[in-house]
């Protein structure tokens, strides 16, 4: 790449003289401009702002232990925000994601307890059933062609009811029986709910799960055929179908991805407390969506990133815990979140407009 120093803008209808290397009509894009084109930029700016804000207002915010706590809060949300972001890039919603986490935890707990089986059996059964729930969402969506809002609102309500109803029916109360003394529990706890200390900072294993999922999702999204299809399916499903992309399969796969992560989050929920409250999870689905949107996902599909969803979840974690460290009334959390969502969305829209104009 030779330095094309001549700032010749050339005639508007430049002749076909692409000499070897770069194109003379292509002005060198500054790294800043390139950065502006990234979907997660708005979220990164927001994250820095939130970080600085709490660093100054909350004294204990910068302590190593606080960092562990913030990351933990972020990871719980982030594990689900990743597949929800992918799904959103694919042009769909999943309102059942929040309660599906609880369902997944309830299934492993109750199956193990009722069958007095090794908890790993329950964990495996839960994986299969949860994947089935995801597939159900996807198949219903692609078969009926109803909006995903309606389909998953339906499964959301049904799962909420099933969680409460079946738990009461089977264990007699609204929570599951403790499985802490059952076979396989310590090992499962190690995998899903242990913590490790690195440099004096107490880090939960969910942070590793989260990081791994973000890396995996980014790889899939940017470097595999399936990732290309996700963007295409969300950006223009008809066009994707016309060039031979399996639109149905792609969407079903995305819903099963949400289910897979719901299983991970559900197992964490179970093994960190060893009992599960059957009414939990309602409302979380919106938090996942908020994290994905703050992270730069376009609500209409076709645009976004997995890393963005992670930054969104991190903002979430910082705000959630920062308010506590600043010793404010935690009731303000929701207000903060709403304001953040609006700001992030506005910023994203502005950034995208600038990025496209700069081309």
């Amino acid at each position: 790449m030779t330095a094309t120093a001549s700032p010749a803008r050339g005639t508007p209808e430049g002749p076909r003289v692409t000499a070897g290397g770069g194109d003379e009509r292509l002005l060198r894009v500054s790294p800043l401009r390139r950065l502006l084109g990234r979907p997660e930029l708005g979220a990164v700016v927001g994250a820095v702002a939130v970080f600085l804000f709490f660093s100054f207002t909350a004294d204990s915010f910068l302590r190593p232990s606080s960092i562990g706590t913030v990351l933990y809060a972020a990871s719980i949300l982030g594990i689900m925000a990743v597949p929800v972001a992918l799904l959103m890039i694919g042009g769909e919603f999943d309102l059942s994601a929040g309660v599906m986490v609880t369902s997944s935890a309830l299934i492993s707990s109750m199956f193990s307890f009722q069958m007095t089986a090794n908890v790993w059996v329950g964990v495996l059964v839960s994986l299969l059933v949860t994947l089935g729930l995801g597939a159900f969402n996807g198949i219903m969506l692609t078969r009926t062609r109803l909006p995903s809002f309606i389909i998953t609102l339906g499964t959301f309500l049904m799962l909420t009811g099933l969680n409460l109803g079946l738990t009461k029916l089977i264990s007699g109360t609204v929570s599951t029986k403790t499985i802490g003394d059952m076979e396989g529990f310590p090992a499962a706890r190690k995998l899903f709910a242990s913590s490790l200390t690195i440099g004096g900072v107490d880090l939960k294993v969910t942070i590793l799960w989260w990081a791994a999922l973000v890396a995996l999702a980014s790889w899939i999204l940017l470097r595999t055929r399936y990732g290309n299809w996700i963007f295409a399916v969300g950006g223009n499903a008809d066009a994707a179908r016309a060039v031979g992309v399996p639109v149905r399969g792609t969407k079903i796969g995305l819903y099963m991805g949400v289910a897979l992560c719901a299983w991970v989050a559900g197992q964490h929920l179970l093994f960190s407390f060893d009992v599960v409250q059957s009414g939990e999870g309602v409302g979380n689905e919106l938090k996942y969506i908020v994290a994905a949107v703050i992270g730069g996902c376009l609500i209409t599909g076709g645009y976004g990133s997995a890393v963005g969803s992670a930054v969104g979840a991190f903002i979430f974690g910082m705000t959630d815990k920062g308010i506590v460290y600043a010793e404010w009334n935690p009731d303000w959390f929701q207000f903060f979140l709403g304001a953040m969502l609006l700001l992030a969305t506005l910023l994203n829209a502005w950034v995208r407009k600038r990025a496209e104009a700069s081309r």
Partner: protein
Amino acid sequence: MTAGTAETAGTGGAAETGGTAGTALVELDGVAKFYGNIRALEGVSLEVHAGEISCVLGDNGAGKSTLIKIIAGLHRHDAGDLLIDGVTTTLGSPREALDRGIATVYQDLAVVPLMPVWRNFFLGSEPTKGRGPFKRLDVTLMRETTRAALLRMGIDLRDVDQPIGTLSGGERQCVAIARAVHFGAKVLVLDEPTAALGVKQSGVVLKYVAAARDAGLGVVLITHNPHHAYLVGDRFVLLKRGAMAGSHTKDSITLDELTRQMAGGSELEELSHELERATGPEPDVTASNVSASDGTAPGEASGKPLRPA
């Protein structure tokens, strides 16, 4: 200009009008399609030969889109025969049509606006490298191939990384055509490629259509603009209310006659009587710019094919 001279070709198919040797790449013979009790298409015959452009003309609702969807594999035909390379076939999906070498470029362009040009170019046929869990998109190959393939068609794009939505309608159309040519399509189906374009951009697109023909593809050009069709077409099939209203080769029809038939012949005359009060209307108002150069333009278009430098 009395009506009733060339309304005869409605039956019997297009075979007798063309004198081309060899089997057609794609041939429709008396094809019909019904949606419930609605007759969308009936008794339509069409031949597509390598290195030729077959034009399908018709007004809105004439059945052009249905015809395309049958050739593209989006719909199955209900009666008649669809022959690919002389063999009777039914296409079950767009993928199947693609595998048989039939590529379709749709009116709404079949691109994903927010995706970069190179991702769009390879969409559905992405090359990969590596194996197992490390199987990944060959990004450098994709970028370079896109640039090279576009250049070969004479499209010099500034940046293959820009979202394809930032290109103009004509440019997008050309990218879609280049994509079809690159993936070894034998038959290129173009749905109203010039419908939403200005005169100059239409000219550019028609040049790429001609370039695809010169590359040896059989082209089906769907349009409601007889001027554009006559510039590049070798065969013309007229559709009217779901049925075939005529089938001609280039040397058996003049542009005026084509325009007249296309516009509905006697209906148009009736209309011109009705409108006489306002202005003295020429047949077909939309493309009068192009029709100004009737005599020379067809020769020019085929005589000056696009040669990649």
